[in-house]
């Protein structure tokens, strides 16, 4: 949140800089089977974001101390490639990636039927190859498609979308400029079949009405994106 409220991001017709209406999401493509050596994989482009996710397993949990006697463990890593942003990212340890890896794992553990694979590990590697705001949402959504592509039993897919506020207007799916100068950001992870949530973060400033609007935008957008995910899983490329 840069909080520079004086930058005009919504024109007199209520349209955003990239021509979208407040509730619109950016164009999305989803493709499965993009990492041939993995058990399941997904490439998702969302605006200028691109995430590639590979799933390996269930496999032996190693080292043994991470094993759980009654369930599988998820080993999730979210990583931004050095060339994914305007300024190069130095490879290596990074607090932001660690946190996103953790909340992504927390979300996915809520839907994967872990108890079917005691003492094993399922590895989910999320690589962001191009970043334009909302990469954690793209990573989580693509990860759930990759898990389905790997045939891992789940109670539902996870669709993650963020809404926020720019120039006091609530908008869905912020792009890079909107995210930099915006006043709030509310990413959510929705289970499209039940409407339940498995992922929630927020920062910024939203009034109760604005919060309700952002929430509703996210739910509606999630249902829309869910259709594309199902198409990709049923038909290969969408």
């Amino acid at each position: 949140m840069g909080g520079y409220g004086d930058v005009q991001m919504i024109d007199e017709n209520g349209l955003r800089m990239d021509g979208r209406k407040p509730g619109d999401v950016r164009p999305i493509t989803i493709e499965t089977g993009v990492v041939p050596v993995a058990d399941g994989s997904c490439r998702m482009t969302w605006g200028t974001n691109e995430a590639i996710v590979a799933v390996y397993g269930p496999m032996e949990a190693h080292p043994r101390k991470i094993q759980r006697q009654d369930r599988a463990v998820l080993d999730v890593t979210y990583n931004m490639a050095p060339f994914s942003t305007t300024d190069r990212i130095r490879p290596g340890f990074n607090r932001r990636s660690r946190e996103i890896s953790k909340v992504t794992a927390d979300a996915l553990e809520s839907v994967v039927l872990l108890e079917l694979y005691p003492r094993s590990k399922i590895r989910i590697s999320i690589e962001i190859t191009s970043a334009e705001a909302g990469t954690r949402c793209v990573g989580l959504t693509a990860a759930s498609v990759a898990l389905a592509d790997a045939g891992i039993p789940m109670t539902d897919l996870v669709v993650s979308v963020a809404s926020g506020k720019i120039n006091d207007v609530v908008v869905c799916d912020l792009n890079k400029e909107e995210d930099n100068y915006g006043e709030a950001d509310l990413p959510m992870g929705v289970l499209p079949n039940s409407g339940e949530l498995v992922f929630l973060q927020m920062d910024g400033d939203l009034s109760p009405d604005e919060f309700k609007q952002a929430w509703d935008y996210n739910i509606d957008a999630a249902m829309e994106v869910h259709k594309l995910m199902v198409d990709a899983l049923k038909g290969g490329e969408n």
Partner: protein
Amino acid sequence: MAAPLVPKLLRAHLSDLASNDARLDDRGQWDGRETKLEIGVLPRAEGSARVTMGNTIVLAGVKFQIMTPYPDRPNQGGLMCSCEVRSIAGRHWENGPPSPQSIELGRVVDRGIRESGCIDVDDLCIIPGEKAWQVILDLHAISDDGNLFDAFALAGIAALRNATIPAERFEIGEDTPLKVSKTPIMCSYHKVGGRFVYDASYREELGGDERIHITLGDDDHVHSLQKGLKGIFTADEFAEIMEHAKSRCSELRDMVNG
């Protein structure tokens, strides 16, 4: 990389295949896998390429930074080549500090590009002694089914040839294409079942012995060599590999120069 158990059955099988002049995937001894090169695939990089060789897929991205020239070379910019093989690329790769394998990968690719002199570091100087461009080539593996070396080298040189110096973003003049005067190409050979083969797959690497990497520049000049892993080879074997490398490098060079 977790040390895989040496699969004796695989080694025996590869040895049988070799004695019948065959390979796991029906290729001939000197045949490469189908190779695809795509340019400009990464919207946030200043130059980029994706190489697909069979089931091996890699990305290369070029970024630029401003550096202070080294005191002993005040008129020169820099070239850095960094390689990351993360857990996405295969179940035998782990995240964490760079493994010796991935460091070797990055350094061998780096030497081939650097020593060919394809990038003139004097040309990267902005203000002598104060400011110069540092070109950073990041190599990122997506899917490892063997021979990451050649895939990285090919994607690397193609990404550099595709790169634009983002001078406008740094407010020092107009964007200009990065000058790349030569096209170094790497060819790698693995000893599998007692004989060298070109472009080994992951299973061939797993059940094979030593490997040799050769980078040739324009006019077949040799720019980097590397022998890796345990094994012994003869001068005659090397001569045979070198002959093949000359013809294969020139095919791949045509693909890059397109």
